[in-house]
């Protein structure tokens, strides 16, 4: 069968194959798999048929690469442009976009990096960092656009403890590397070095539709996590004291400072209806 008889579907399959897989997809095509471009696309005064098609092929990969770079800007810095592009290209080959939105383009990037880590035999630590950083950057983009109304009454230092409620867009993250600090330094235009492994905790909050990132300590993470789960200051406090073996007196001593910092960072709103 000649290409002049290509159905609409066959033609689109062929062209998409040329863009996404760089070669025509083999299945469904039989002998048309390697249909010469000249049989399908017209040459013009200035360009051959192949050059015409190449404009689309080049734009396809260049556009998606640049989207990946803007979604993973800190990772691009950490890996360096060249290595990032190599991973991004492989990723786009393996997981071509299935979404009408480019915001989800990098959804599987972190797990892809995990699947294809280059040190399968003798594990090194830098891939772990890159994988965590990729996951973190994607998470930030999700939180940025999460459904929630960002207008609430912020708690003040005078709000009674049992009226404190976590902000509706509030996320707690834990990492094996100091991811949040690294990201903050990068976004402030500094040039952070590849960090050593070190457990770290952070809170991500969206205030007036802008993200705030805060490094917090392990005990604060534990306490806030319990507040998130139980929606109760008292319960979270009791759990921290009982499960982490922190004396009540010690809690009472640090709490005013925690409260002040948490409120200054916008973590709490006042219980609605009070």
């Amino acid at each position, binding site marked *: 069968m000649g290409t002049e008889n290509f159905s609409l579907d066959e033609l689109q399959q062929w*062209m*998409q194959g040329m863009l996404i897989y760089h070669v025509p997809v083999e299945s469904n095509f039989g002998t048309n798999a390697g249909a010469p471009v000249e*049989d399908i696309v017209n040459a013009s005064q200035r360009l051959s048929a192949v050059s015409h098609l190449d404009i689309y092929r080049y734009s396809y990969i260049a*556009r998606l690469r640049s*989207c990946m770079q*803007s979604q993973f800007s800190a990772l691009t810095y950490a890996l360096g442009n060249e290595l990032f592009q190599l991973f991004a290209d492989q990723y786009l080959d393996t997981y071509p976009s299935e979404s009408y939105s480019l915001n989800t383009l990098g959804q599987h990037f972190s797990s892809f990096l995990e699947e294809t880590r280059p040190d399968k035999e003798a594990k090194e630590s830098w891939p772990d960092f890159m994988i965590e950083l990729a996951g973190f950057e994607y998470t930030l983009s999700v939180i*940025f656009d999460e459904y929630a109304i960002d207008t609430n009454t912020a708690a003040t230092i005078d709000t009674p403890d049992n009226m404190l409620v976590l902000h509706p867009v509030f996320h707690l993250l834990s990492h094996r590397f100091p991811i949040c600090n690294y990201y903050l330094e990068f976004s402030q235009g500094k040039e952070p070095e590849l960090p050593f492994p070190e457990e770290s905790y952070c809170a991500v909050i969206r205030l007036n539709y802008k993200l705030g990132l805060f490094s917090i300590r392990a005990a604060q993470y534990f306490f806030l996590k319990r507040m998130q789960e139980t929606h109760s200051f008292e319960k979270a406090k009791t759990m921290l004291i009982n499960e982490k073996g922190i004396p009540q007196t010690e809690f009472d001593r640090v709490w005013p400072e925690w409260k002040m910092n948490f409120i200054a960072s916008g973590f709490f709103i006042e219980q609605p209806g009070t």
Partner: protein
Amino acid sequence: MPSVSNYRQQIANMTNPGLGLGLRSKHFNYILEHNPPVNWFEAISENFMDSGGRPHYVLRQVAEKYPVVLHGVSLSIGSTDALNKEYLSKLKQLAAEVNPLWVSDHLCWTGVNSLNAHDLLPVVLNEVSLKHICDRIKEVQDYMERPMVFENPSTYLTFKQSTIAEYDFLRYMVEETGCGLLLDVNNVYVSGFNNDFDPVHYIRQLPYESIVQMHLAGHQHCGTHIIDTHDRQVAQDVWNLFALAWELTGGVATLLEWDGNIPDFETCHEELLKAKQYMNHNFQAAPITVQQEYEEEAVSNPVNFLVNEIRL
């Protein structure tokens, strides 16, 4: 359910809101703070339909103060995949929320087998694809309960299988479905250069009464071809074509698209206002000028395709 003649009537009744700008995240703060005297804004539907954060918040604010048009890039009206119902339902929901003057997309396809190439890919222009596309336009319009408006895309190739000129194809779409047209004057110029057709002839053949909107944008000349980059001022040749299109249509909503190297709001607005000089300008078939400075390695950027810019 409204009929084709209903849709045609609605298109005929569309009013001209004047000169508008594409709503871009870079300008969000400026627009909210200054309420600039732009007649209307065009929002890229996909940048807002899944947003529960800042983009969505800003669009709602803008829609309260200005007329808004929703302009999509992912309808994929030419694809042989089934229509994406999830996409359509979100589009309909967004339209219900911001009450746009109209909803537009492109004569193109974006992918098959549920994949998305995130590009406006050229359709084959023949009778089979015409029927396929018209059937789908009717389905979309009936679902959306409004006429759709379709834009001529920039194209970088033509297919051997194509037998119908693009302007005729658009005319048949209009006749068969009652849809409206968005004439991108820059795209006509770009496609004409790339595919050896005369943009003046193209524009003269269009069904003007169905054109509800025009697009203007800058492009990048690469010597052997032109890429639709939307990253600079409108070329003089394109202004000349705009003067012709203005004369033929009697003047319709006109919008400037700027998607790469986006300057500050005022610069975009100034560029848009140049359009006034070409209204009632009496089109002279000026010879197409030959651009001297060519650049390489351009990426077509037909719309605001960038992912969200996260604000800390």
